[in-house]
């Protein structure tokens, strides 16, 4: 194991910061090390790179990203330990952030940063939410009568007309977060019953949302439990940049999204977010990056190009997305502190032979 005095200083500084949360910019404590700011990103290059360009333009700070899945990057950061080159971890899922936090990888953030988002402040203050996506039921308007769609995700198991026509992603993190919320809102037994009920309808399991929605378009399934922005992606036809709803007319659209009743577990809002690494030697630049993620520029960019919702209410939204407040109202309110039992969720999914 390499011991570096500068790392020790940083660690001490981190302890000091953790001790007094009022402390603001920790740049005052240690000047940043040379070299670009290093972001480990569980989000795809295609989504992140345009934002990094804007950050470079806006701040003049050099930034480089290392991409991978959340799981790959988390495993790598744990192996790297104190020697990790990462300054910022930008995760694609809440689960990964919670895991990074409990592994002690993330540094305490100042209140000035934590107060900026209008929703989803995490317990512990070690990461900031960056964007929001909602769970929805995607369906084929050509093959499914809208009236047949249930108002609660809990009623989906009873729908015999969807036998063999349901798609889900049991191994995917967003789905697992949804199962965790089912457990929090309705208890483990109801959750097991719901899973068994869906299984009885012979659903098709996909590794992730993109191939599932491709399958929906291809006619392999009729409904899919997914995240809202994948529906816009499909409507956009695989192109880049902003989505023009006028380009797809409502009748021939291959896929549409259905929201359940207000407060239903099926409408769960899921956040992506970012934190600063405990071992970062470029804390000043890392803070500016996190701050930039919460700026109107970055928030609107995510909304326009990724179709995710912002976490800052003031950020302008494209017209085809629901207004921020209405979207937030759809999701059930869940205490984030109760969302951390991933193990219990995995156990239930393993018992159901889905993992």
């Amino acid at each position, binding site marked *: 194991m390499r011991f570096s005095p500068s790392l020790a200083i940083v660690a001490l500084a981190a302890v000091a910061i953790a001790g007094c949360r009022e402390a603001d910019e920790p740049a005052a404590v240690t000047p940043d090390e040379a070299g670009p700011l290093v972001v480990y990103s569980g989000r795809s290059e*295609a989504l992140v790179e345009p934002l990094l360009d804007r950050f470079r333009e806006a701040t003049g700070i050099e930034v*480089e990203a290392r991409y991978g899945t959340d*799981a790959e990057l988390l495993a790598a950061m744990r192996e*790297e330990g104190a020697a990790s080159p990462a300054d910022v971890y930008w995760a694609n899922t809440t*689960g990964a952030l919670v*895991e990074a936090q409990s592994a002690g990888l993330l540094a305490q953030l100042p209140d000035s940063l934590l107060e900026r988002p209008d929703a989803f402040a995490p317990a512990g203050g070690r990461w900031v939410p960056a964007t929001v996506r909602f769970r929805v039921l995607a369906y084929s308007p050509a093959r499914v009568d809208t009236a047949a769609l249930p108002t609660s995700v809990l009623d989906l198991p009873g729908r015999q007309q969807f036998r063999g026509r349901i798609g889900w992603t049991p191994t995917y993190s967003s789905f697992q977060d949804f199962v965790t919320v089912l457990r929090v809102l309705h208890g483990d037994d109801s959750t097991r019953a719901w899973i068994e009920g869906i299984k009885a309808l012979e659903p098709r399991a996909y590794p992730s949302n993109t*191939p599932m929605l491709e399958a929906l378009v*291809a006619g392999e399934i009729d409904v899919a439990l997914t995240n809202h922005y994948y529906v816009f992606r499909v409507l956009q036809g695989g192109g880049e940049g902003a989505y023009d709803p006028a380009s797809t007319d409502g009748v021939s659209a291959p896929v549409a999204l259905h929201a359940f009743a207000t407060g239903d577990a099926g409408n769960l809002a899921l956040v992506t977010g970012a934190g600063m690494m405990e071992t970062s030697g470029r804390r000043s630049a890392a803070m500016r990056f996190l701050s930039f993620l919460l700026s109107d520029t970055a928030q609107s960019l995510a909304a326009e190009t990724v179709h995710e919702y912002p976490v800052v209410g003031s950020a302008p939204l494209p017209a085809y997305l629901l207004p921020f407040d209405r979207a937030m109202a759809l999701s059930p309110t869940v205490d984030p502190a109760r969302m951390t039992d991933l193990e219990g969720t995995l156990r239930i999914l393993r018992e159901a032979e889905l993992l």
Partner: protein
Amino acid sequence: VSSAALRAEVNRPGRAAVAGAARLIPWVPAALVVAGVALPLVYLVIRAFEADPAELADLVFRWRNLRLLGNTIGLAAAVLGLSTALALPAAWLVVRTDVPFRRAFTTLGVLPLAIPGYVIAYALLAATGPHGTLSLLTGVPIPRPTPFVGAWLALSIGTAPYMFLNIRATLLGLDPSLEEAARSLGMPRAEVARRVVLPQLRPGYLAGATLVVLHVLGDFGVVSLARFETFSYAVYLQYAAGYDRVYAAWLALMLLALTGALLAAEGRLLIGRQFSRTGTGLARIRTPFGLGAARWPVAAGLGVVALAQVGVPVATVVDWLGRGTTRAWRDLPASLADALSAAVPAALLAGALALGVAYLRVRRPSPASRWVERLAYVGYATPPLALALAIIFFSLRAVPALYQTLALLVAAYALHFLPEALGPIRSALYQAPPRLEEAARALGRRPMAAFAEATFPLVRRGLGAGAALAFLSSLKELPLTFLLSPLGFRTPAMGVWSATREALFATAAPYAMAMMVASAVMVVLVMREE
């Protein structure tokens, strides 16, 4: 030591020490390979020991895993069958007959290697189903393949080139005089094929088959898209869904145990065989087998197979190109340069290491040299994510300055893909008569010079094919690239993966195109070398 070599050393006592040292030279790459393969094993064992016995029973030793193991073996057997059926006739036709467009079909037979497995799987999915491109083109609704069939087709298409290249390299090196002798003794053609040609194909076929099977064992991208659950999928899920390194290590070790058993079986099939020419004189130039009037129908048949293998993925990517404009074009040259800067040295290094390992195996057969070769294959079967984590673990402890540098990435590629280079080189060495090198020694050449002048020219073709395989795989590689590459390093493979993950098919298209073109150029270059 052969008697000729001994005589040479006895006749020139002053050189005995030099010769003794030279004998160790092939052991240098061998030692590197063993170390490189042992490191991930050690890492996995270290992590595995952190396990809690009760959890272990829940996560690792459960019936589901046994079922997945059964799925894996069934899929591997099926893929082996189909890839043989695709590659064996094609290799024979392009090497031994006068079928038209032999060169083009040779290139097409290797070309699926240029396409990442998950792109082939995506293409299959996009082409089928009532709204798939194939159905729209033909007007006939073609159903989506079942999970098993999808995985079987995509993997067979993707791995058939390993078989094709290995069999082709062996066929090219066969001395026709054996067959002619059999024919002149009155053996019918079919009998000659069965009793003379096929047995000689054994080392090439086994090398190809080993790669195909190990590829299926380790594949994650294709089986997950096809929704067919295999053991490697369980390993990946343990890392991905559980954010866990400990129980994943157990599963990875179980996968390696399975690999070990398969390799032991393969090794038994090659012991004590002689594949080189024993007679004097040059191998005769072969006259191609005339297909006569069947030439064009056979070419058409090859064309249909090639179209199925290459056409569907290429058509899919072309369709993606039409989905809109993208910034990928701007980033493409730099990412292609990055990919080549790692894949080219990795291919050369893999070729050099494989030459050392194969030389030991073929020319100095011993339990030790057999072990070295088996171990090299173990590296191929190590799940890449586990390999990447092991390299992080050891490089940061031993040489932190090397971490996330191009040198480390090249070494990782070379160690991981070395077995792909091994097959063609091993087959070529089996066919290069040891007597030539012994004669060179007897004429006073030092061991290295004797090898360079007598044996090397005969294995050059195999070396080229082997290095090309390692190159094509390095170009497609993902987990090692993501975690070990230098900062800011981007390859087209990363671009394709990142974009398809978000359904940004327009963005994926230029990268996928670039990979296919770069790989095709490489394939053509290697073929022209011959």
